[in-house]
């Protein structure tokens, strides 16, 4: 398919789909150009914008019910009007005021989206934090964005098949507000659905929904961790843990004087190998070995059956968190270690002391300065 056909298909996918069987009359009255009226003195020009008209029509109830069944929420959500509300973006109200000022306003998903966004942030953060206890904070924030951020929500909405159901209106860039695009409008749908699950069942059901659709997707954390000087960071991390200073050793090499050498360097702390790296020069191999050692620390992952989530302490019963009654699970928080090494930000004294918690655990009464 050429790029023109692909562009046409993607533009068509963003248009609201209207089911002719739900309309009273097709083509609609507004679209038909009236015959020249004999008695009107001024000729009114005829305008009909099909896209705007289509945005104002509600989606077919059969399509909404099919959507609910497709994502497994048919038993939770009692009527298609609720799904319609979840698929209606607040920007449609501007069109409604302009073209249908006398009709009742449609129910929109603005509040549902906000609630769902908060819930998704909560579930993603606790999952990432519990699964990767040593992950640096900025990487954890990036991981949460990858799991439940705006791009992912838009992709999930497209994969669920919400694009023909969404009712929205494109808003241009203004000095006070960013432009509203198709991806912003459809991203509101999965967030609104999470909020609906919370409202109609419980927090733990909403968590199950989030784990099923958002947290089961693949995120590559290795690409999010970037180092400026991994050797220095590793030296400080090793000192923080009270181990011997890291020494790099050449393990294997080949083709030293050729145009494609390969060196394999391992970094050792005493007798323990912390990491291994390869490269076409000794420096490159050592850099990669230091990176590998730090990644082995930062990316340690709790096995899925041992992951403990703080939201498990909410009662496992029907209703919101204030009214639900049921058994509450135990939550044992992980041991707090020292905060991660911020080697690029030395304090004013230039000292490098081990962290407060590791000092306390060694029961030192005096601190060496």
């Amino acid at each position, binding site marked *: 398919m050429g790029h023109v056909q692909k562009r046409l298909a993607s533009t*068509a996918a963003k248009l609201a789909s209207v089911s002719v069987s739900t309309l009273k009359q097709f083509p609609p009255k507004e679209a038909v150009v009236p015959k020249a009226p004999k008695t009107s003195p001024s000729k009114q020009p005829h305008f009909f914008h099909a896209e705007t008209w289509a945005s104002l029509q509600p989606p077919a109830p059969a*399509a909404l*019910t099919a*959507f609910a069944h*497709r994502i497994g929420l048919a038993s939770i959500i009692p009527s298609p009007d609720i799904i319609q509300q979840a698929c209606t973006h607040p920007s449609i109200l501007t069109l409604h005021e302009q073209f249908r000022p006398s009709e009742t306003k449609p129910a929109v998903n603005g509040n549902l989206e906000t609630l769902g966004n908060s819930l998704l942030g909560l579930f993603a953060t606790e999952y990432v934090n519990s699964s990767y206890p040593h992950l640096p904070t900025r990487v954890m924030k990036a991981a949460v964005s*990858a799991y439940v951020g705006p*791009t992912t929500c838009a*992709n999930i909405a497209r994969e669920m*098949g919400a694009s023909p159901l969404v009712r929205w209106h494109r808003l241009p860039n203004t000095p006070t507000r960013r432009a509203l695009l198709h991806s912003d409008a459809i991203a509101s749908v999965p967030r609104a659905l999470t909020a609906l699950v919370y409202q109609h069942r419980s927090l733990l059901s909403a968590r199950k929904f989030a784990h099923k659709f958002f947290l089961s997707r693949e995120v590559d954390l290795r690409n999010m961790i970037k180092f*400026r000087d991994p050797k220095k960071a590793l030296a400080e991390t090793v000192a923080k843990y009270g181990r011997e200073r890291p020494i790099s050793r050449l393990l294997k090499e080949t083709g030293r004087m050729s145009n494609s050498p390969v060196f394999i360097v391992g970094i050792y702390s005493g007798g323990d190998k912390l990491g291994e790296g390869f490269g076409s020069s000794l420096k490159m191999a050592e850099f990669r070995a230091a990176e590998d050692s730090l990644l082995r620390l930062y990316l340690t992952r709790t096995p899925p059956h041992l992951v403990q989530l703080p939201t498990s302490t909410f009662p496992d019963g029907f209703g919101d968190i204030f009214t639900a009654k049921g058994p509450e699970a135990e939550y044992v928080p992980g041991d707090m270690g020292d905060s991660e090494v911020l080697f690029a930000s030395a304090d004013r004294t230039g000292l490098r002391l081990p962290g407060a918690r590791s000092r306390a655990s060694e029961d030192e009464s005096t601190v060496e300065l």
Partner: protein
Amino acid sequence: MPFRLPPPTRPLLRAQLRSRPANGHVAFIPQCRKLVFEFCNRWPSSANTRTFLTNHLEEFARANPHVEIVVKQRTQKEPIVRGFYLNDRDKVIALNGFEVTGIAKKVQLLLDSSGAKIKPLKRRTVESTTEAARGIWSGLHVEEPFKI
């Protein structure tokens, strides 16, 4: 000369970070979203389609609640069924010439499909009068046979 740190790596823009789909790992989203049946009320080529629509369509609809089913009249044309998928593609199958069971099979084919383009995986095999130079590979005669 004061030591200068190497330039930092390209920053990550959090709004652009995304996850990759894993349909089927935990939740499975069926890919067919809509089936449209078009038939003629008069022509004999649509007779089997009409029988299918009156007798068997309801059980298909009940068994697949995630699919929206539309029945349209298209007079003086051959009967077709068109399936719409979540990748914005559609598949059209002409239903003239099939018996009712054949129509049911084609509808099931559309329901099971993902909408992706059919990619030819098998190419023409090499037919030669001479035997292979290095012998035909056998999975049982390797150093480490595959263990499940």
